């Protein structure tokens, strides 16, 4: 049987079935919601920042929502890597960082699922900084 895209490696299934940092935080510095209308995936990101003169560091991060395995696993992995990163580091993340993190080739039709969590976290951070408006994130093309 052809194994095709190989998207569903153990690591992704593990994060999907046992999501890390799942839930909502008590007192987040910012939180933001986004959706992928094509799939009905929805993700909320809650972030607690530690703010010093040198800039803001992500102290705690959690996600909630539901959707396909790719979007949920991606959110789970992202929350694990974001802890301790600065907001600047979050904002400079790119698509490739997400696919590298997932460790598999994501088919073109599913890339929106993969990058949803990253986009929600980044948009949330920009809104918090006052660089963007407070609309809900929607993943389009």
């Amino acid at each position, binding site marked *: 049987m052809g194994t*095709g*895209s190989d998207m569903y490696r153990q690591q992704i299934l593990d994060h999907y079935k046992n999501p890390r940092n799942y839930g909502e935080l008590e007192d987040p510095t910012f939180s933001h919601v986004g959706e992928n209308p094509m799939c009905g995936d929805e993700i909320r990101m809650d972030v607690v920042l530690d703010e010093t003169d040198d800039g803001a560091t992500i102290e705690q991060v959690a996600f909630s929502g539901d959707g396909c395995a790719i979007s949920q696993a991606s959110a789970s992995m992202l929350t694990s890597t974001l802890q301790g990163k600065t907001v600047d580091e979050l904002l400079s993340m790119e698509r490739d960082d997400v696919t590298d993190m997932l460790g598999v080739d994501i*088919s073109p039709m599913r890339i929106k699922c993969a990058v949803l969590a990253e986009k929600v976290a980044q948009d949330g951070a920009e809104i918090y900084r006052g660089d963007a408006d407070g609309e809900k994130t929607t993943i389009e093309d």
Partner: protein
Amino acid sequence: MSHQRVEPLDVEAIRAEYPILDQSVDGTPLVYLDSAATAQTPDPVVDAMSDYYRESNANVHRGIHHLSQQASVAYEEAHDRVAEFVGASGGRKELVFTKNTTESENLIAHAWGLRELGPGDEVVLTQMEHHASLVTWQQIAMRTGADVKYIEVTEDGRLDMDHARKCITDDTAMLSAVHVSNTLGTVNPVNELVDLAHEHDALTFIDGAQAVPTRPVDVEEIGADFYAFSGHKMAGPTGIGCLYGKEDLLAELDPYLYGGGMIRKVTYDDSSWGEVPWKFEPGTPPIAEAVGLHAAVDYLEEIGMERVQAHEERLAEAAYDALSAIDGLTIYGPEPGPDRAGLVSFTLANVHAHDLASICNDHAVAIRAGDHCTQPLHDTLGVAATARASFYVYNSVDEIDPLVEAIEDAQALFG
């Protein structure tokens, strides 16, 4: 069921005319189960279109020269042929070529709806409308102040006809209903719906996008005022669709789009319109596509629409039986029978429809996942997305096995 009466299709012979199906995806033979979205196009249709480009291509209506005459005759005759195929005795006077079903809906919603609808009028739709009809009438109703009502769907995926009798009243100006649901597979009682609407002097628009490809359709027997369908779901090309309308109704409507090729007389101050269908077909039309659709209609008639329907019913029943044996799998829509077409939508516990479609793709099985352009219906069903397998003349019952294997694989992965 009708398939006991007619001679079964010779799927192997049919497949020989679809070279696209004879391919592998990563070494596994392709299984195409997405024909409700777009059906594949057989050699005779592809050949008719390439012959047209090789031998007769020119613009229509305007040319005196040889090629333009050939192209014009082919384009005009395609209207008559397609009209005949769906039982429209008025030929081209009752059959307009559009881009697709969606444009056919928009044509009537704009040309008739914007002029005739107003506050106090009601447009009655069904809960299982495709966005092509739902969004169009919803938006035209908003612009005109008319109200929209939806006939409800029962637990078993049929229209609630008691509710239909309540919804359709003397305030109803238009009933727009889908003939065969692209999500539930339900074959709706369109004759009864049309009669109900006519008893209240309402007009009727039937969306036949999934019906014309899969069963014999006679618009006059149904009695619909307007009826729409798309070339690409009936072994024809993309880029062409049809609007049937009763001759007198089309004749008195104003155009929806304006431009060249549709006019009788133009001055700097005013214009008057040509005959139906040309007054609804401004600009250079899809000529090669019309030639292709003509060939598709010939092709389907050669097979016989009763046999196509029986084949669809047989596949639907086999798929229904095979899928319902899988634990945790939910099928939407009526049980197999004469009011269920050859498509099956389903969900699998713990597996999102998009993951399921991705895993099916890993098995070279092409299915669709999403809301199938029926978002409100999915809200009613309480799911964000479903997976859908759909069949056509080239599918064999054996192709359901790889689908089942793929679903079982998904279940094992996610279990």
